[in-house]
């Protein structure tokens, strides 16, 4: 019997819940503790847990390195793109009020904050994954080292 069977079964149940919790934290960052950074780290750790239990090759099939490469830059683009969008709509850089100028309860600010937090989520998730892939794929020089 596979000695990691218990870990594998429990991880299969936990990993989707962890990713779901990460998205919960992201979108409820406006109403409680949370936001882009915490959510990004939580979603990245769900993939890292998958890699730790099932192997780095299985994780690279689930989240390929090309996604990671694109996702890191996409997050910064989304954040900067929000600023450029506010420019194009006539305001200053990152002045979100221009998204909904006639709202009485700051809907423009809410849209802007949502957009930049999604950018932060993308960058943090894929940057943490990139760093983990880099460390985990490197073949160690030490052979025959025991604990």
């Amino acid at each position: 019997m596979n000695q990691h069977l218990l870990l594998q079964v429990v991880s299969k149940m936990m990993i989707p819940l962890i990713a779901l919790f990460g998205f919960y934290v992201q979108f409820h960052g406006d109403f409680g503790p949370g936001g882009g950074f915490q959510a990004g780290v939580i979603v990245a750790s769900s993939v890292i847990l998958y890699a730790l239990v099932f192997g780095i090759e299985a994780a690279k099939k689930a989240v390929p390195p090309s996604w990671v490469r694109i996702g890191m830059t996409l997050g910064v683009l989304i954040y900067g793109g929000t600023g450029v969008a506010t420019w194009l709509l006539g305001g200053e850089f990152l002045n979100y009020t221009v998204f909904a100028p006639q709202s009485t309860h700051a809907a423009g600010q809410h849209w802007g904050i949502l957009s930049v937090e999604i950018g932060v989520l993308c960058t943090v998730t894929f940057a943490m994954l990139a760093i983990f892939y880099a460390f985990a794929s490197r073949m160690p020089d030490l052979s025959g080292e025991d604990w």
Partner: protein
Amino acid sequence: MMVHSLPILLMEIGFMAMLLVVALAVLRMRSLFAIVMLQGVYSLLCAAWFVSLDAVDVAFTEAAVGAGVSTVLMLGAMLLTDRDANPLPTKRKLGPLFVVIIMGIAMFYALGDMPAFGDAHSAVNTGVGAQYVQSTREEMFLPNVVTAVLASYRGYDTFGETVVIFMAGLGVVLLLGLNGNAGKWRAKPNGQSVAAPSQPPVKMAAAAKPVKTAAAKRKPVRRKSAKPKAGGTS
């Protein structure tokens, strides 16, 4: 003037004592695995104390980043490098000890000028911070003040922070390679493959001239098998 009620004060004293013990343990230990785990414990204790200090966002981030991802990265790096630290000669300890004691005395001397713990009328707490709470209440209509300040009032700084994380990911990918093969490629100019040197030049230099380096004088930690030493002779 007590900042907290007695049970919370006891809990804070417990946190401070545990943090001190963990820091001293990191100082004294030589096994890198234990040191990396202890820094995860340190981050988690700090996150717990942050909750008691009403900093819930910061506690969340410190627990996730400091006790989570940071420990995994350190373990990954440790698996690729070494398992133990060498013992430190006493000569190397005296200079840093002297500097640290002098700095500590100077900072304790400056302790009296700092605002009292929990003071609501200190310069820190009556300036821009209170204005942000008021402005969020009046014009932002968002319950979490920290998110409002981070994403809107100080959004430019958060942009810089996002770029810093991107640069860290980029830097590690450049140093190690997304598939772990940076620095180990072979070039093929004009179809002829250029063989990379089998060992890096510094190792070859040391192998060519076997001198009694500090590696040979190292006192091994109690373990069953001998470790291969520096010098590339393995």
